[in-house]
């Protein structure tokens, strides 16, 4: 394993220390339990939007804390959802009296830990709503399983709900908006290489030099299937097909197209992917009105990409365009 780290056990803490000295104007870091929160929190009368999850997906979530996006983010160990006390303390710290929205990715661990935290926070008199993101079309949705994973749509939901909270919408409105974004977003990802969890020290899976994994999540887990590496255009077709054939896109509709790097794939390749994804969406009659291209929800240094499409309407477009000032996403200010 080659990484720019010191001890595997110190990775998350040292990363947080780096964030703390890098962005004191935007965020503060609380340790034990650890979370990143807006430097100006709590903001009186504003719904607080918070999220969390295992580390290793940077900039998500800590990099999205700031004006117009998250009020706090709780980093777990690498690929391990945070504990209830992290979410509880973060919730207490940023609650401005208007309630707190928990954006939860649909993983058993995240769900259970966040549920416990919400229960405890409610016990402390804080209004909490939790919305679960489950947008990964690589996983068959079913009542009898854990359901779909939460992936790329999470980033978009955090941006959009953060903007809505900034407008002083109510907790119920922001939570409903989050459910709408989740209902309108679909994602699928693939990997060219595995990633290496620092404390494991070797790649999570072995992938021969001529093979790839299709339908991966963001935790280095193997995908739905393994196959020979194909040209980028064919890979993009394999990702776009399940996204588009799933509800809810109809010809003529407007979409946001998000091409994400899993961490190790450089930008030159992302634009080749975007080019084809855009072509496919356009051919299906969809209007790509917004986009996002870069490493925003990663899986350590994994090479690969994920594509997310989100149906847009006027409200979503305005919320997307609203100012955001975080370490990982910034515009309009």
């Amino acid at each position, binding site marked *: 394993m080659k990484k720019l780290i010191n001890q595997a056990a110190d990775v998350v803490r040292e990363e947080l220390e780096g964030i703390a000295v890098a962005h004191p104007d935007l965020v503060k870091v609380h340790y034990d*339990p650890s979370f990143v929160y807006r430097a100006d929190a709590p903001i009186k009368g504003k719904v607080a939007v918070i999220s969390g999850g*295992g580390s290793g997906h940077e900039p998500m979530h800590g990099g999205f804390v700031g004006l117009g996006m998250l009020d706090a983010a709780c980093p*777990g*160990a*690498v*690929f*391990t*959802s*945070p*504990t*209830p*006390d992290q979410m509880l303390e973060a919730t207490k710290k940023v609650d401005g009296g208007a309630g707190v929205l928990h954006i939860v990715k649909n*993983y*058993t*661990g995240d769900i*259970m*830990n966040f549920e*416990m935290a919400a229960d405890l926070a409610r016990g402390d008199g804080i209004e909490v709503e939790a919305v679960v993101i489950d947008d*990964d079309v*690589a*996983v*068959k949705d079913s009542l*009898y*399983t*854990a359901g779909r*994973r939460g992936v790329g749509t999470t980033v978009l939901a955090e941006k959009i709900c953060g903007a809505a909270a900034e407008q002083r919408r109510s907790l119920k409105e922001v939570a409903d908006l989050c459910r709408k974004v989740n209902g309108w977003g679909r994602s699928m990802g693939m990997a060219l290489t595995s990633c290496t*969890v620092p*404390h*494991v020290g070797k790649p*999570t*899976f072995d992938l021969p030099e001529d093979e790839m994994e299709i339908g991966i*999540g963001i*935790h*280095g*887990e*193997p995908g*739905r*299937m393994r196959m020979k590496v194909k040209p980028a255009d064919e890979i993009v077709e394999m990702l776009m097909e399940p996204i588009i054939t799933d509800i809810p896109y109809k010809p003529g509709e407007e979409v946001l197209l998000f091409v994400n790097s899993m961490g190790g794939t450089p930008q030159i390749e992302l634009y080749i992917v975007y080019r084809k994804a855009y072509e496919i969406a356009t051919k299906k009659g969809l209007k790509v009105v917004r986009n996002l291209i870069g490493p925003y929800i990663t899986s350590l240094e994994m090479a690969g990409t994920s594509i997310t499409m989100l149906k847009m309407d006027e409200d979503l477009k305005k919320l997307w365009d609203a100012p955001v000032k975080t370490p990982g996403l910034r515009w309009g200010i």
Partner: protein
Amino acid sequence: MPIAREDALNWIKACGKVLAENRDYLTQLDAAIGDADHGANMDRGFKAVLNKMPEISDKDIGTIFKTVGMTLISTVGGAGGPLYGTFFLQAGMKTAGKMELTLSDWYTVLDAALSGVVMRGKAELGDKTMVDALTPARDALKAALENHTSLPTALEQSAEAAREGMEGTIPMVARKGRASYLGERSAGHQDPGATSSYLILKAAADTWSACT
């Protein structure tokens, strides 16, 4: 003698030891169908529990188990944290104030702990989770109780049932937890959580082999 306070403490220590020893093994199992952290998670949690030992070494069994549960919840994270946390919290509820446990008490404890896990995780038998190891272990205890089996033998039978349950997860297609994302590809791999459950119950049988 029945299972005493010290025995309960020794079991927790033994869990810490066996989970540290099997850290890489559990992680390897989790790498195949999950996210390669179950060993590290359990080890981190029980290391934190061992650090709490001085505080609870003179407490009743209920307090001991409850402290273990709280500590796991705040240090493990992932699925394992809430599930094993709930397991020990429920065990603590059934043993509140107790200074020793009989076989019948232990059955009640395991039954409540398992119910807590099921209530939290909503997994059913055959979903390829720790429930597939814990359920037969609980059932074996029940059968042993009915057959008036001795405590050490009952514990051995319970651990053996957990081992069979654990191995039984190999051919299963996961329906709960992270392995469920793999669909058919999850078959052919042993569930890491079922494995840690077996290790914990086996540690009980080993630690309490002189109890009666």
